[in-house]
């Protein structure tokens, strides 16, 4: 069974989330404060973390950073503020996606499914090359200069999406659709922040990216 860790200080919301998620067939772990996340995380090993930004004790952004130091588990933030600052802080701390309260529960489930799905691998082309980065679709890993670089599943999906069609210019909307499972969305922050994070991991010079190139006014494409 897939285990989802729900971190929220609001007991009622946490319980409601538990009801909805259990109803969709997930196993749920309820945590009510930031301080308890790390000890539980190590013993329970959840498949996904649903994390409220505003938490007593360690706040959501801090928790996010702490988890990212140890694991590439998908993290979806819950935020009451649609404000840029909160969202960007969360994404920069390593969250893969975020939901602004009040959200539609069906949409939440849909997002979680996207984050939990295994990227369909192409058996014929097990390995893809983009710049000096080797993408192993079977092992779900990437290798640069004989070193394995740890990527979150989302970052892997993002890189793979670009690498599968080298030279094609992906609009941010297309990437949102393909990688995040959003339809008709214009949330460019999500794409921009993750491209930045990915570049920081694989590019030699972040200010002069060669592997993931920006096409001004349109989006991104994979470099040769």
């Amino acid at each position, binding site marked *: 069974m897939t285990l989802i860790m729900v971190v929220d200080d*609001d007991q*009622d919301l946490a319980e409601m989330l538990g009801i*909805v998620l259990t109803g969709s067939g997930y196993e749920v772990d309820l945590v009510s404060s930031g301080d308890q996340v790390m000890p539980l995380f190590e013993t329970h090993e959840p498949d996904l973390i649903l994390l409220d930004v505003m938490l007593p004790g360690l706040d959501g952004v801090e928790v996010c950073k702490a988890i990212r130091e140890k694991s590439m588990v998908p993290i979806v933030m819950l935020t*009451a*503020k649609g404000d840029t600052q909160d969202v960007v802080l969360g994404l920069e701390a390593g969250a893969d996606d975020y939901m602004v*309260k*009040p959200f539609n529960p069906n949409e939440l489930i849909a997002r979680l499914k996207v984050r939990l799905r295994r990227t369909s691998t192409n058996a014929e082309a097990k390995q893809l090359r983009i710049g000096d980065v080797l993408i192993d679709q079977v092992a779900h890993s990437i290798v640069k200069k004989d070193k394995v670089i740890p990527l979150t599943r989302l970052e892997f999906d993002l890189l793979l999406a670009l690498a599968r069609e080298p030279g094609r210019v992906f609009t941010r909307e297309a990437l949102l659709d393909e990688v995040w499972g959003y339809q008709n969305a214009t949330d460019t922050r999500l794409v921009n922040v993750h491209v930045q994070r990915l570049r920081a991991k694989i590019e030699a010079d972040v200010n002069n990216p060669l592997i993931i190139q920006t096409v001004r006014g349109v989006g991104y494409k994979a470099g040769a």
Partner: protein
Amino acid sequence: MNFLTNRWRTSLLFRVISTTFILSILLISATGSALYFQISNGIYKEKTNGSVVEAQSLIQYSQEQLYSTEYIAKLKVKDVIANIVRSTDQTLTSSPRDVVLVGVPIKNKKNSLYNSSSGGIPVSSIPTSLQKKVEHSTKIKWSRDLITFTDGSASDAIIVGSLIDIPNQPSYELYYIFLLSEQETILSLVVSLLWFTGIFLVLFIGLLSWYVVRQTVNPVRAAAQIAEKLTAGDLDRRMMVRGKDEMARLAISFNEMAVSMQQQISRLENLSRLQQRFVSDVSHELRTPLTTIRMASQVIFDGKEQLDSSAARSAELLMSQIARFELLLTDLLEVSRFDASASILESSPVDIKALVSRTIDQLQPENGKKIKSDFPEGEVIAEVDPRRIERVMRNLIANAIDHSEDKPIVITIKDSDTEVAVAVRDYGIGFTESEAKRLFDRFWRADPSRSRIRGGTGLGLAISLDDAKLHQGTLFAWGSPNNGAQFVLTVPKLPGIPIQNELIPANPNLTASTNFLSFNEDDI
């Protein structure tokens, strides 16, 4: 010239000094000329009087000499005349003079036997007007005239003349000519002295006024500079206070004003911060329970087959009203963010064409007329906040659909190098001028009976206008009852550049003009 008029308008110092200069030049030249006239009149009067007196005695003496030829045999008229007619230099008792002796013509017959002159003055240089006066009088006559010498040069002189008897000869006229060269030398000295004093005085007064005005203008300039700095946001700037005069008082009150302004501003800043905090707190506090409510209602709604009909219908209403409440909450929070100036523009390069097309696809009414689009070829890239621009477009298009009465809707995009305009035109019920004035007011609805077709919050246009302004763009509306309406959004392609051209006029009956009339929102 332009430079001067500009200086005149912009610099108090320049204005005061140039006025002082002009006035002092006028005053000093008036005094100078008056002085000059007084002096020259005095000098010439003195010289004339002296000359006349001197000539009188000389003429008398000459006459006596001539008469004496009659009884002193050895004296010959010719010699006496030669003695009379000769130049004299300055002596202690007399001035330098020349003499001319002219015969008076008798019945047009020439009488020039003893005509003679001294000092290179031709006999003809005696002015005829004076000659006429002398001929018809026994008294001494004089005039001031220009004497022409035989070598062609001329000089101002006083000419004194009288009839004289030469024994056994017809009448002669004897003229004494006193050249005024000495007086002219004195006068030219006076003139140069006057010029010197005049120029010196003008410069001195100019300098003085510059100094005096500077003392007043400098503190004013300093105040202006500091006021500019304050305006630019450098609120800690203060004026220097020196002494206890009026300028010091100006500085003190200026500084007091700055302090009170700073306090007001920081108070308002505090209020704005509090407001932002409040908005953000309300946001969090309201959203968390709303999330729970929404999820709960979804669970109930999903299981409504198991409920009886009234409970099922209640579940439906609960769902739709929660959705409406949510929209309202979102819009309210957005509005209060604008009010607290807490809205941030998150610009990134966006293809406006793609953005508008996407919005149309989302809103395209399934039944009824289609939305037509009139877009330029190629991409229309502008650096805007896509979330906000999409929200504006969604509001405008949804609005047009609501009021179009199934008539077509036309969306036009036009762009220039610096800006892009999107017009949404419908041919529906339109609105009146008085309605147009209130269009962008919060919660205002043109027609309450038809307002809730789409469940709009009544804040859409108000937020759209704020979004446009945040981009330093414009949002104008035009409407005419039963002829439809047009909303035109214009935003700069790069943030921070004000709109220069009206690419699409709000009134569709007008063609685009390059001269953009900027009018404020009250005119909308």
